[in-house]
């Protein structure tokens, strides 16, 4: 009797270890874009090409860590979305396969990697987002300068992303560096001052949007996609830009080296880097700025961006210094006691 059980117990795991049968063509991807946006895009892709996309959503840090950990035996074909500095860090680990989709040559230089390690599919400026009620209560206007965030009224009321796990944060930090002319000491000085007002650094880039929307926090720095999403959900928030300028990060896509379905992966990249996908942003209320030059910015989005001073982040510079800067941020800014 016991032998019977042992037999069953031995067979079952064997069955589970077999990789699942793939019905029809499908491609595997880690998506750094949230489900709500990745899913409709992939569904449209399937409609257009018949290829199914199996994906799991991770934040940029997690996704990169996964891909690197799986280097010897990649589980996915494509790394979809995510601020470009994430991909830049990945290049060092040799996890990507260079590939130039058809739209490669028309893309501006900052929207593509010279050797094709990645291409941009969208542009995502950072914005300030603040809670209207909070502003009213404290008699404030929406912040128009980086220094506005140092105002004492914001004490313990700011939320923004943690640089250890979020690309948003890294973009933010490099924006600040740019504003201070890459003088690290001055920039870190500012960040330390701002730290005093920060309630919490969130794990994901958009993690602070809900608290700001609810009024749990007064303001924060987010990518425009997340900020506008919050506004569109019905939360009473205001979007503003600092006059000194704020950075924008391209959202990229890349082919994984050693991918099991490289051809299908390439098809996905082709589609994503072209107007085919980027024209769908407006339809699904995804507030990215399309990367493809033929794409016009959607009207209401353009309205929000009017007059804002937005500069691109130099991905070479960012990629080279990311680790060191983040470590410095962790040691000097994050661990500051109130």
């Amino acid at each position: 009797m016991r032998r019977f059980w042992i037999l069953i117990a031995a067979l079952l795991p064997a069955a589970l270890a077999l990789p699942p049968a793939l019905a029809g063509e499908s491609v595997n991807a880690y998506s750094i874009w949230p489900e709500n946006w990745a899913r409709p895009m992939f569904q449209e892709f399937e409609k257009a090409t018949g290829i199914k996309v199996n994906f799991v959503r991770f934040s940029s840090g997690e996704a990169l860590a996964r891909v690197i950990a799986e280097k010897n035996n990649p589980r996915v074909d494509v790394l979809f979305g995510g601020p470009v500095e994430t991909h830049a860090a990945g290049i060092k680990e040799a996890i990507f396969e260079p590939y130039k989709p058809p739209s490669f040559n028309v893309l501006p230089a900052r929207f593509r990697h010279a050797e094709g390690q990645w291409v941009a599919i969208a542009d995502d400026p950072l914005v300030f987002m603040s809670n209207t009620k909070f502003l009213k209560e404290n008699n404030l206007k929406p912040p128009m300068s980086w220094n506005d965030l140092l105002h004492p009224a914001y004490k313990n009321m700011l939320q923004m992303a943690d640089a250890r796990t979020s690309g948003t944060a890294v973009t933010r930090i490099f924006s600040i560096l740019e504003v201070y002319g890459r003088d690290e000491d001055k920039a870190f000085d500012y960040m330390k001052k701002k730290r005093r007002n920060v309630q919490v650094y969130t794990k994901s880039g958009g993690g602070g949007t809900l608290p700001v929307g609810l009024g749990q926090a007064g303001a924060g720095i987010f990518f425009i996609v997340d900020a506008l999403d919050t506004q569109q959900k019905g939360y009473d928030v205001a979007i503003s830009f600092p006059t000194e300028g704020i950075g924008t990060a391209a959202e990229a896509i890349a082919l994984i080296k050693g991918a099991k379905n490289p051809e299908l992966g390439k098809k996905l990249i082709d589609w994503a880097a072209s107007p085919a996908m980027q024209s769908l942003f407006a339809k699904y209320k995804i507030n990215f700025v399309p990367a493809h030059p033929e794409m016009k910015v959607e009207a209401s989005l353009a309205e929000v961006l009017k007059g804002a001073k937005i500069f691109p982040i130099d991905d070479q510079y960012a990629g080279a210094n990311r680790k060191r800067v983040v470590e410095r941020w962790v040691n000097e800014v994050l661990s500051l006691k109130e």
Partner: protein
Amino acid sequence: MAGIAGTWMERWRRTLRDPALFATVLVLWVFLVLFILFPLARLLGRTFLDGGQFTLANMAAILQDSNHRQAFWNSLLLAALVGLCGTVLGFLYAFTAVRANLPRGWIMILDACSILPLVSPPFTTAIAMIFSFGPRGLITYHLFGIKGFTVYGLHSTLFSETLTYFPIAYLTLKPILAAIDPNVEDMAFSLGSPRWRVFRTVTLPLTIPGLANAFLLLFAASLADFATPLILAGNSFPVLPTQAYLQITGLFDLKGGAVLSFVLLVPALVVYLLQRYWVGRRYYVTITGKVGAQTTIKSLAPWARAPLLGLCLLIAAAILYFYVLLFYASVVVALGANHAWTWHHYEVIFTEGLKAIRDTLIIAGLGMPLGGLYGILLGYLVGKKHFPGRQTMEVVSMINYSLPGTIVGIAYLIAFNDPPLILTGTALVIVACYVFRYSPTGIRATVALLQQIDPSIEEASESLGASSGTTFRRITLPLIVPAFFAGLGVVFIRSMTAISATIFLVSINWTLITVRILENMTELSLGPAAAFSILVVVIVFAMIALISSLLRRFRAAGVVEVTSILGG
């Protein structure tokens, strides 16, 4: 000492003479080595080896970071506080439930409320805490008008974890308090001792092993908690499991993550050893609850009853409040912004989230019988049979259970992503993780039940002509079946609610509800996160009800409460 060497040889000979026993032991060892020792070894390898050389450099690099050191002390502090508060709270609850002469109805309410936190998916209290105690929290701001109260930090994490884990102390202490014969206290009274003195000199000393055990259990639980601090601890109060997680997922530093896990291993190991050798095996749930002559319990002054009950109900109400809030969040469009009634979130989880639900149920469904079987088999072998290495086998089987989930997850990630055994991306690795982490409860229940079975019962069967196989099948097995079901139940429930280990193991092909909850939360889709959570709670309660009814049907030597098993 020819005699003693003789017994050892005799044991070997006896084992070899019984081929079924030998084969089973061998197979079990294969599994134990593969799924417990091998990943741990790889983890240690990552920590201490560099290119094949033993090195402490990795450890040094991590320990030099003051943030990590702070996390270590924070973890210990938090765990100690949670242990303390949770034990006191649990004792209060248990004392009220057992000694306050409450009608059954009240006791059932207290029981039900104490189960809720134990079987819930992660983050449930965290979400509610933020809503209630954040700067614009329902309670802090809207109710009390307090501004600028910060919800992130040690205090909320402590509060949340205490509420989540005190049921463990409650379930540990309740049978102990119940087993103290009220006649003993009566006798003290008859000798003229005032109530407080009786409590101090009679009741309390008898409870001390239970208190120590409860403290250790809670300490270990808090040490391993990954989910709550992730949301509530904030940046000024880092703790180890979250640090390890962030090290890997944020800084892509697998080596650093391994080291941090190892650091976490040390206090976990100490707790395990303390529990095993100091508090002793008195932990096992007493199964036959034979109570002496019923005397009305006088140890509690009548005037004290109402306040105690009131306090317990207050806590129960707090727990219920969190769940009501959770449910509310799942049925409004956007909590805090748009309170229109909607079922949309449930629609979402059953369409977009269907894969996660299906995957989780499949994995839990697979893990359940495997875990139950493994639990009862190992428990029987370890509890009844004698073979060389028996004690070692028992200790090894407990390892994954005693370790914080983060360590196990990272170990599995490291061990099974490269040859010789590539399992990441399959369901097997998740199922294996659950089976070898949560079966020990079933193992312990089996051993406990076996201890309750007098050997003379099996001898009686033998004297009536039955072979050992028949005896096992017709006598032993029916008597330990309650442990089987309890083990089943625990594996299933924990499979539904676990996250700290398996967050490292999800993949394209297999994803879990708990991970989706986390994703939803970080994507600010609170509605679906809440809806998923409610779904998990409903499923888990359904399973508990099912198992309880199955247990009631078995008129065995005693009825095992599933919930008390959960305490372990």
